[in-house]
């Protein structure tokens, strides 16, 4: 594969990253693996002793696990929707960030469903989902939706990778044989002929179009697991779009965070520019406002209508002695903070935008917890139970261990992937004789007055 000047530049910059697995990387890998090991031990306990080792009981039948499930499927929207939409709109500045976005999608779509499996009492019977599927059940919809979505996003990521694999194959990298061979296999004989280029272009376009409705279906179906029940706080018609919006929003946040980390770690400032942070910040701000609007609308109607059951849940969420402070945090850090940070020109810097994203992502996790637990703690009939764990949910160390193991898995996969493929796609540069970095900055300066 012939590389043009810009491609060569990007490639040279990232070459050492995929050629070696440095001491630091090993350190992190072992650290993540240790976390995962603790998670495996927790899982062993849960399978061996039954779900009584978790904080879940007959009233609160779901807890941290389901919150994590929604959370991970949510952040997977980074690649699906953000990169899908930017691709369709042919936004040029997307090119350096699509790989990160699509990696987030694929990795979190692997991790998310693990959490729903952790909620399942009989892992030995999972094949029943395919032996006796019932189409009426939102869980069955979910199985098919997530399955399709995962395949779709994997193809989307792979399509964008084929050209790069061909580059790695032909670059005589200083890497072990098996890795060479793997690149060769994965490049599936791509030589950059016009017909090959055309095929990839068409399939990528098709996938970009398909991945967006698929993603919307996935999170809608997920929200319907709650929306279809007759529970206060869940039985809401806006749950579908509300979840979809929250998902895109948190996906953007995680994308910004990942960009920030990579930019620092591999000194990619000239590719992941300030402009990317600001533009994604704008997207985040708009999504944050929309998400805030949905949140306001949802809780206002429940509170104003003050139906008996809804009021009980609302009371728990608003009461500072119960979940009030968490709810406040979820809204301040999850809605106000990102909007303000991006809206005020002084704070519109990569570091602060990344920091705001960090808080926003945590706030959205808290929000998912607040959707699930208070409702389950408020059944329609009085609980009247003296066993405290049946009245109030509090997660056990097993659940926390598995939560952190999931996050560690996310980081581990990311580390491994970034050692296997370049974070900035190489082949994307200069298909047309358009350089991304300098002219883009010029454009940016024109539009914003200054870089900072």
């Amino acid at each position, binding site marked *: 594969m012939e590389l043009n000047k810009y491609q060569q530049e990007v490639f040279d910059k990232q070459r050492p990253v995929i050629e070696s697995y440095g001491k630091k990387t090993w350190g992190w890998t072992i650290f993540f693996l240790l976390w995962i090991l603790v998670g495996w031990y927790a899982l062993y306990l849960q399978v061996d002793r039954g*779900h009584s080792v978790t904080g879940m*009981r007959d009233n609160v039948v779901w807890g941290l696990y389901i919150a994590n499930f929604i959370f991970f499927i949510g952040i997977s929207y980074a690649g699906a929707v953000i990169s899908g939409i930017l691709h369709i709109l042919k936004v040029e500045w997307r090119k350096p960030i699509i790989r990160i976005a699509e990696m987030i999608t694929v990795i979190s779509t692997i991790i998310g469903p693990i959490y729903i499996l952790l*909620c399942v*009492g009989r892992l030995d019977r999972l094949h029943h989902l395919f032996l006796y599927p019932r189409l009426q059940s939102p869980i069955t919809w979910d199985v098919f939706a997530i399955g399709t979505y995962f395949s779709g996003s994997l193809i989307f990521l792979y399509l964008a990778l084929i050209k790069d694999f061909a580059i790695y194959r032909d670059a005589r990298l200083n890497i072990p044989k098996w890795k060479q061979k793997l690149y060769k296999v994965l490049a599936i004989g791509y030589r950059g002929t016009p017909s090959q280029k055309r095929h990839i272009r068409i399939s990528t376009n098709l996938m970009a179009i398909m991945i967006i409705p698929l993603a919307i279906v996935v999170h809608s179906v997920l929200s319907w697991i709650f929306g279809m029940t*007759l529970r206060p706080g869940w039985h809401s018609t806006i749950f579908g779009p509300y979840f979809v919006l929250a998902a895109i929003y948190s996906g953007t946040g995680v994308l910004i965070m990942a960009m920030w980390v990579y930019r620092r770690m591999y000194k990619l400032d000239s590719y992941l520019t300030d402009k990317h942070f600001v533009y994604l910040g704008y997207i985040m701000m708009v999504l944050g406002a929309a998400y805030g609007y949905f949140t306001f609308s949802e809780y206002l109607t429940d509170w104003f209508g003050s139906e008996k059951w809804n009021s009980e849940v609302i009371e728990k969420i608003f009461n500072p002695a119960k979940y009030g402070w968490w709810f406040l945090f979820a809204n301040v850090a999850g809605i106000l903070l990102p909007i303000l940070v991006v809206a005020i020109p002084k704070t519109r810097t990569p570091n602060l935008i990344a920091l705001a994203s960090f808080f926003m992502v945590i706030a959205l996790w808290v929000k998912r917890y607040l959707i699930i637990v208070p409702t389950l703690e408020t059944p329609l009939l009085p609980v009247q139970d003296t066993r405290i764990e049946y009245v109030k949910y509090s997660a056990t160390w097993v659940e926390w261990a598995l939560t952190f193991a999931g996050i560690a898995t996310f980081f581990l996969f990311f580390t491994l992937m970034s050692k296997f493929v370049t974070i900035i796609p190489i082949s994307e540069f200069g298909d047309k004789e358009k350089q991304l970095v300098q002219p883009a900055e010029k454009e940016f300066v024109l539009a914003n007055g200054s870089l900072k």
Partner: protein
Amino acid sequence: MKEEEKITDKSRRDFLKTAAIATVATATCGSLACSCGSGSPKKIAITDKVKLLSPDGEIVEIDSAYLNHQEHMAIVSKLEARQGIAGKRFVMVVDLSRCKNARKCVTACQKWHYRPEETEWLTVKLMKDSDKAAPYWFPKQCFHCDNPPCVKVCPVDATFKRQDGLVLIDNERCIGCKFCMAACPYSTRVFNWDEPEQPFDIMSLAPNPETGLPAKVGTVEKCDFCPDRAREGLLPPCVEACPNGVFYFGDENEDTVSNGDETVSFSQLIKDRAAYRFMEDLGTKPRVYYLPPKDRQFPVERGYDDLPDKIKERFKDIMEETKEVEKH
């Protein structure tokens, strides 16, 4: 040595028993299917000789007097257990004016289903509908809804609605996702968070949705209206155990319900006593009707004062609140 002999002897006899029942069940299956419409299944005549297949492969003939009818032995196939008892529409009426929270129903249920003390398929709640309203005892089983939210959401058809109105669970198929528990608005379902403790002979029973035994870890269970007893024309243990005749169980098609002491017309009863269904507005169409707690036979304290402390604790808030209101 003797001990050992005894054990082998016993286990052989047990095997024969099991085999015999299996044989009898197969032989009478056809007739049973026809006779269950009348509601009085035939008892096995005890003087008959029964042919059995011995463990050595020989056919032996033994007196059926040696055969015990074993409780909890499912007499129908799993497929039949999914269809239900032909011609029946089971229904329950709960007379709230008679309940004094004696909790005999709860213990009878736990005993029959081999459930531990903490697991209550049938619970008695203390309900108080509004601030000034007088509290009343409210026994609650599964409502076996005609529009069951739990059945709708099950991804593997482990919980199902039968033609006789019952909602049962196949705990061999349940994957334990607990979606049905989240979907049930009445908190009826319970989950086996641990390996359930059961006697050995119960654990070795062939599982069947009609008996719900043996219980399995990681699966959901709930009140099943005891269809295995209904097949024999028996009332559920909760109905039989109640000292005040609170529960009426019966068949909507026959239009009769019985609390063990009296058998009355179902339609007449719910008409005369202004029966209602709990949370009718949810649209779940329960098969359990409640007779309002009017003209009560017992003051509400009768069900509270003698309770063990652990259970008393459950109702403390409401009882104290009520006492406060009465003082003023």
